[in-house]
């Protein structure tokens, strides 16, 4: 009886603690990536004397570059496995999805491999982004006058 109850309690609590751990990891790593983005933006604005709006473009390009590079070098997969949403939700996840699809199909040739499959994983972000942006833009234009 005691054993069965013990097992019940373990089963009830084990997934929860994993979830808790995942949540903490995602919060800390995702927050760190966000902080890095803000830091890079301010650094670029300070170094090159450009407005923060242009600095944000350079910041996003930098993050995408490192996301792509680390995926190509092979150890970003382990990072993503460890941090989960902490690296999927930031723009690095977009870079990771694009890069890993490209690497996977690279040996099938330039056009049928890379060209056809590059946006296989990250294409849905662009598609649904464009669809929703267009309709929400339309809604705002019609009902709120732009």
């Amino acid at each position, binding site marked *: 009886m005691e054993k069965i109850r013990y097992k019940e309690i373990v089963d009830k609590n084990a997934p929860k603690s994993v*979830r808790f751990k*995942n*949540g903490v990891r*995602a*919060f*800390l*790593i*995702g*927050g760190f990536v*966000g*902080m*890095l*983005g*803000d830091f*890079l*933006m*301010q650094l670029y604005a300070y170094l090159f004397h450009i407005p*923060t709006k242009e600095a*944000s473009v350079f*910041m*996003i*390009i930098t993050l*995408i*570059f490192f996301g*792509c*590079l680390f995926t*190509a070098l*092979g150890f970003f997969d382990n990072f993503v496995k460890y941090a*989960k*949403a*902490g690296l*999927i*939700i930031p*723009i690095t996840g*977009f*870079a990771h*999805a*694009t*890069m890993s699809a*490209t*690497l996977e199909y*690279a*040996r099938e040739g330039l056009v049928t491999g890379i060209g056809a499959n*590059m946006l296989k*994983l*990250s294409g*849905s*972000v662009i598609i*649904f*982004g*464009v669809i*929703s*942006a267009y309709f*929400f*833009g*339309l809604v*705002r*234009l019609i009902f*709120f006058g*732009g």
Partner: protein
Amino acid sequence: MTLIYSFLFCGVVCLIGQIILDNTKLTPGHLTSLFVVVGAFLDIFDMYDKIILWAGGGALVPITSFGHLLTHGALVKAANVGIMGLSMGIFDLTSSGILAAIIFSFVLALIFKPKD
């Protein structure tokens, strides 16, 4: 000070994503698509612009900002040109990100070979 706010904002967005990922059967692909739609939705009431003023670069890093920038570019162009501006300006602000992802992926895929 925006460093702390950007840490908090980006962390909370990732935490919400992780909670959704753990408690439903959605894949990361579903998750990113969902967050893009949420970001595009928040731009209707200019809410995301206020978040960017508050959290700085931390609000531009999550994928929600991608949806926000799509809507924002479309609306800025639409304010000048009219309703056709929606289709003309939708990629104005995000093209740099998409271009960077495509160019870097292409070049790096030519240089590196996959391990297995």
